[in-house]
């Protein structure tokens, strides 16, 4: 069975959520990796968790990307290793150049912490292979800088290469303007790289794993990952 690694930066605060989700809810072997570690041996899947690494100084994720472990994460990803960045983790992967684009402040300038709906846009990835295209998930978000931006050429290449995995929608899967609460270009909530082994997403599926805590819609996403890893 796959072993998951959860990276811990100074200021990470969803590392334990991710650990709990993988270890206790899904029963997977899971390890914390300190940002000064450089040894990823034995790790099959990396999670770059949410939080406020380095206090979000300069730009979210800008400092964390130079942590010793990030050089190894880049190598791991370039060799095809699967990496999932959630929220601040997404911002770090963008700054590290593993996925294209950048994050701006939410267009209404407010930190938004609530449950939103996201729609699965493609099943052509190891992260979404067991989901259904058009399937809607009730997942919490919690960020101030989640307004995804990429220039028009970049956006076109994301669309042409089917790299958008999740978009913000309403409960019915419609891409309404109000569903796109942070102003992200083309409603983008989660994208993958051209190699399709790196996912960045702003919503927190690891916080939606148990019904008693509000939603368990995050579970199918991680189960999809587990399915893909077991057949790989």
């Amino acid at each position, binding site marked *: 069975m796959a072993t998951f690694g959860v990276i811990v930066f100074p200021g990470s605060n969803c590392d334990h959520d991710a650990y709990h989700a993988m270890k206790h809810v899904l029963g997977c072997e899971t390890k914390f990796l300190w940002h000064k570690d450089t040894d990823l041996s034995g790790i099959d899947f990396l999670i770059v968790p949410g939080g406020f690494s380095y206090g979000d100084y300069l730009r979210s994720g800008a400092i964390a990307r*130079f942590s010793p472990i990030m050089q190894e994460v880049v190598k791991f990803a370039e060799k095809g290793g699967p990496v999932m960045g959630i929220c601040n983790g997404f911002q770090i992967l963008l700054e590290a150049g593993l996925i294209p684009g*950048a994050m701006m*402040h*939410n267009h209404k300038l407010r930190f938004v912490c609530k449950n939103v709906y996201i729609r699965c846009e493609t099943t052509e990835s190891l992260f979404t292979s067991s989901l259904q295209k058009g399937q809607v998930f009730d997942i919490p978000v919690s960020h101030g800088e989640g307004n995804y931006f990429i220039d028009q050429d970049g956006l076109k290449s994301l669309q042409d290469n089917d790299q958008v995995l999740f978009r913000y929608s309403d409960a019915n899967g419609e891409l309404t303007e109000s569903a796109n609460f942070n*102003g992200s270009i083309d409603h983008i909530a989660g994208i993958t790289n051209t190699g399709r082994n790196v996912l960045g997403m702003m919503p927190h599926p690891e916080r939606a794993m148990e019904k008693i805590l509000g939603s368990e819609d995050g579970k199918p996403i991680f189960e999809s990952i587990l399915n893909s890893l077991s057949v790989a």
Partner: protein
Amino acid sequence: MYKAKVNVTLRPSILDPKGKAAHHALENLGLNQVEKVRIGKFIELDVNADNEEAAKAVVEQACTKLLANEVMEDFTIEIES
């Protein structure tokens, strides 16, 4: 020792919600002459280099590698000895 002054601003094509909010507040203050506000970052660096050119090269690297994100930001550099 050289002093570098770096200005990092959002690219003109990019919406600046902070600038917009500040602009609204200025309008509320009655300063209607202000037509546009863009907010960026000002960064000062003390640089140990042999000459101005070398100092500028170092600061340029600092900007492209860390201080600015060129996906959405532009920067300008001023060097003072």
